[in-house]
C-alpha cells in the first residue's frame, strides 16, 4: 500500500470513529448538565463545599466562582512546585525556579499547558500527578462549564440565572472526564505507555554504555492531557516520546481522544436548544475547517519540494523532528488536530515543519480555537462567531439579527465584539513588544523570517490556550515567562467574561418565534457564511504577521 493511501485510510478511520460518537456522547453531555439526579459522591462533595445545589447563579456570580477557583488553583500549584522536594517520590528534583513555577501554574490552570520546562528533569511524580494532572481535569471541566452556561443563555428565558458552577464542574469531572480517562488510560497502557511508580533506574546497554530509564504514572496523565485539550506532556517531547505514545495506533487513538469531546459538544448544544440541526450546522463548520487544516499540512509535509524547505529537499523527506513510526502522515494529522483544538500536544516538532506546513499550524491557532476548539472553549467561541455571522448577515439584508430565537441587540454585539477583539490585541501587542526589545529578540533560535514565526506562534499559542510551540524559541527567558503568564491569563479569562456576559443578557430575553423573515441558521448557506466570517476576520487580522513569517520563508 502506498504511503498516501495509508494516510487517507488513517484519516478515514479517525473520521468514522468520531462520527460514531457524535450522537451518543453529545446526548450524554446534554443529559449530564440537565438532569436533576445526583450521584451519592456528588451530594457528598456539595456538602463538603457547603454548596446548595439548587441555588442557581447569575452570570456574574458564575464568573466569580470560576475566578475564585482559578486563583486558589494557581496559588496551590505554585506552592506545590516550589515545595516539591518535601513531597514523596520527588526523584531528587529541586524546587522549580520562581518564574518557571509562575508560568507553569498559570499555564495549567488556564488549560494552556505551555511548558518552559522538561518534565523528566524538573518535576517529581507527585507534582505532576497531584498538581499538574488535577488541573488538566479541572481546567477542562471549567471550559465545558462556561460552554454549558452559554448554551443555557439560549435555552432559558426571562431569568438571570445560568446554573451553579460548583455543581456543573463536579458533574463534568465525575460523569464525563474521569470515566473516559479510566477507559482510555487502560487502552494506552495496554499498547505500551508506561504506568508505574518506579524510581529512575540505570541499566547497562547492549554495547556497554549506561542509560537511565525514567518512570511515572504516565498513561493516566497522557489520556487527560489529550482528552481535556491540555497538551502538557509528562516528558519534554510530549506525544513524540515513546513512553507517552508508543505506537502508530496509540497516536491515532490520541488524536481521536483530543477531538472527541469538542466535536460532540455541538450535539449537546443542539439537544439542549431542542433543535439538533443547529448542532449539525456548527459541527459542519468545525469539520470543514479541520479537514482543510489536515489536508493543507499533509500536502506540504509530503510535497516538501514545493514550499522552500531546503533541508528537507536535501534529505529527501521532511523527517526532521518526526518519529519513524508515525511518519509524515501521522505527524500532519496530529499537528493539524492539536492546533485546531487548543490541545497543544505534539507528536512531531512544529519548528521543523516545512514553512507552509508550519504556517498552517500557526493559522489554525490564530483562528481562535473554534474548529472544533478546546473542550468547551471551542463551543462558546463558535457560538460567538455564529452571533457575529447573523449580525453581519442581518446588516446585509436589513433584518433584526436573531440566533436560536434570541435577538442580537447592541448589548449582545458589544460582548461578541469585545470577545473577538481581545485575542488579536493581546497576541499582536505581546509579539510586537518582544520583537522590539532585546530580551525578546535574543531568544530567537532560527534566523530570518522563521524567527518571527517562532515569536508570533508563541503568543498566539499562549493567548489561545493551545500550548504547542515552535519550540526553538528560548521561552524560558524571564521575559517570556512573565509576559507569557499574563498573556495566558488574559487569553483565558477575558473571553470567558465576555462569553458569560453575553449568556447573561441572552437568558434575560424571551425567545421570539421563528417567522418568515428569520434567517435560517441550519442551512448549508449559513455554514458557508460562518466559515467565511471566520476566515475573513482572522485572515485580515493576522495577514501581515503571516506574510512576513511563514510566507516570506516559503516563497524565498
Amino acid at each position, binding site marked *: 500500500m502506498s504511503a498516501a493511501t495509508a494516510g487517507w485510510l*488513517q484519516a478515514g478511520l479517525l473520521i468514522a470513529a468520531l462520527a460514531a460518537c457524535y450522537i451518543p456522547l453529545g446526548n450524554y453531555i446534554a443529559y449530564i448538565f440537565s438532569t436533576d439526579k445526583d450521584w451519592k459522591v456528588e451530594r457528598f462533595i456539595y456538602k463538603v463545599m457547603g454548596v446548595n445545589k439548587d441555588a442557581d447563579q447569575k452570570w456574574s456570580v458564575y464568573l466569580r466562582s470560576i475566578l475564585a477557583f482559578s486563583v486558589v488553583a494557581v496559588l496551590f500549584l505554585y506552592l506545590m512546585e516550589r515545595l516539591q522536594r518535601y513531597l514523596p517520590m520527588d526523584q531528587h528534583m529541586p524546587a522549580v525556579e520562581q518564574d518557571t513555577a509562575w508560568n507553569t501554574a498559570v499555564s495549567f490552570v488556564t488549560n494552556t499547558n505551555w511548558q518552559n520546562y522538561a518534565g523528566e*528533569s524538573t518535576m517529581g511524580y507527585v507534582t505532576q500527578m497531584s498538581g499538574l494532572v488535577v488541573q488538566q481535569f*479541572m481546567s477542562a471541566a471549567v471550559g465545558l462549564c462556561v460552554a454549558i452556561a452559554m448554551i443555557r443563555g439560549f435555552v432559558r428565558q426571562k431569568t438571570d440565572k445560568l446554573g451553579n458552577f460548583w455543581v456543573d464542574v463536579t458533574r463534568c469531572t465525575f460523569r464525563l472526564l*474521569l470515566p473516559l480517562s479510566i477507559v482510555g488510560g*487502560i487502552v494506552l497502557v495496554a499498547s505500551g505507555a508506561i504506568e508505574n511508580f518506579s524510581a529512575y533506574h540505570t541499566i547497562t546497554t547492549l554495547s556497554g554504555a549506561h542509560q537511565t530509564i525514567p518512570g511515572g504514572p504516565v498513561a493516566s496523565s497522557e489520556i487527560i492531557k489529550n482528552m481535556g485539550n491540555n497538551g502538557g506532556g509528562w516528558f519534554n517531547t510530549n506525544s513524540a516520546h515513546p513512553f507517552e505514545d508508543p505506537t502508530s495506533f496509540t497516536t491515532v487513538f490520541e488524536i481521536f481522544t483530543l477531538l472527541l469531546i469538542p466535536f460532540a459538544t455541538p450535539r449537546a448544544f443542539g439537544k439542549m436548544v431542542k433543535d439538533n440541526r443547529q448542532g449539525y450546522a456548527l459541527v459542519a463548520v468545525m469539520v470543514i475547517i479541520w479537514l482543510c487544516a489536515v489536508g493543507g499540512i499533509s500536502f506540504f509535509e509530503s510535497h516538501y519540494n514545493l514550499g522552500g524547505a531546503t533541508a528537507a529537499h536535501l534529505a529527501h523527506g521532511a523527517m526532521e523532528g518526526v518519529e519513524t513510526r508515525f511518519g509524515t502522515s501521522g505527524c500532519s494529522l496530529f499537528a493539524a488536530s492539536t492546533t485546531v483544538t487548543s490541545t497543544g500536544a505534539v507528536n512531531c516538532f512544529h519548528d521543523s515543519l516545512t514553512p507552509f506546513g508550519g504556517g498552517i499550524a500557526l493559522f489554525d491557532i490564530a483562528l481562535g480555537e473554534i474548529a472544533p476548539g478546546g473542550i468547551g472553549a471551542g463551543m462558546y467561541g463558535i457560538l460567538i462567531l455564529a452571533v457575529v455571522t447573523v449580525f453581519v448577515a442581518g446588516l446585509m439584508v436589513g433584518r433584526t439579527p436573531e440566533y436560536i430565537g434570541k435577538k442580537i441587540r447592541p448589548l449582545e454585539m458589544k460582548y461578541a465584539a469585545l470577545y473577538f477583539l481581545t485575542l488579536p490585541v493581546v497576541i499582536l501587542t505581546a509579539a510586537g513588544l518582544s520583537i522590539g526589545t532585546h530580551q525578546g529578540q535574543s531568544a530567537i533560535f532560527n534566523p530570518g523570517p522563521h524567527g518571527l514565526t517562532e515569536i508570533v506562534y508563541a503568543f498566539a499559542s499562549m493567548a489561545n490556550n493551545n500550548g504547542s510551540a515552535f519550540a526553538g524559541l528560548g521561552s524560558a527567558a524571564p521575559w517570556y515567562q512573565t509576559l507569557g503568564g499574563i498573556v495566558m491569563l488574559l487569553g483565558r479569562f477575558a473571553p470567558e467574561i465576555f462569553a458569560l456576559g453575553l449568556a447573561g443578557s441572552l437568558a434575560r430575553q424571551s425567545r421570539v418565534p421563528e417567522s418568515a423573515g428569520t434567517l435560517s441558521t441550519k442551512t448549508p448557506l449559513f455554514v458557508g457564511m460562518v466559515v467565511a466570517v471566520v476566515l475573513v476576520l482572522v485572515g485580515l487580522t493576522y495577514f501581515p504577521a503571516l506574510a512576513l513569517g511563514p510566507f516570506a520563508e516559503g516563497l524565498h
Partner: protein
Amino acid sequence: MNRLPSSVRQLITGLRLLLIMTVICGIIYPVVMVAIAQVAFHKQANGSLVSYKGRTVGSSLLCQEFVNDKGQPLPQYFQPRPSYAIVGWSLAQKKNGQYYIAGTGPDNYGCNPLYSSASNLGPNNPAQIQFVKQRLQEISKFDHVPISKIPSDAVTGSASGLDPDISPQNAAIQVDRVAAARHVSPAKIRALVAKYTSGRVLGFLGDPVVNVLLLNIALDEKYPV
C-alpha cells in the same frame, strides 16, 4: 461562614473543591490506574524492558547509541537515527563558520532518556542544512552507498531523540556493512532484518519500521562478533 464577604466565601469553596479533587483525581485515580496496569499489563506499564543473557539491556521503546569510546559508530551494529536527547543540547558555532552540536557534562551522548529533545531546527536554518549534508557524506562513506539511496530518516533528528526505530530503507543500506563486520553473508542479515520489521499497524496506520535494539540483540545472539 455566611457572615464573610461573598468573595471570601467563594475562595473558601474553591479551596475545598480543589482539595477534594486533588485527592480524587490526583491520588486515588493514578493509584488505581497504576494498580490495574501493574496487574494486567505488567511488561508495558514498566517500559517494555528487554533482557539479554539474563540482564536488562534496555527498553524496546528507547533508542540506544552503538558507539565506541570516541563516539564513532560501531560497524557491527545497526545504527539508530541522529538523536538530540543530549544533556544540555545546544547549537555551538565555531569561528570557521561550521556548526557543531554541543552537549554539556560528562554524559555527552544521544538517546539519553533524561533529556528527550528534538532539534527544533527550521528547514532553512543554515545549521540544519549543514548537518544534513554532513550526515549524507558520513553515511555514504560508512556504508558505501550513493547519496541518492540514503533515506530521510537516516539524516534527520527524530522528534523525541529516543526513536527506537529506523525505516526499512535505512536498515537496507546498513546490511552490507554489518554483514562484513560480522563475517556473515548479507542474505542472512537481510533475513534477520525482515524478521524485525513491522508493517503498518492494521495495514494502514503509521509507517513500517525496524526496531534497532531488538535487531541488534538478535544479531549478537545469532552471529556474535
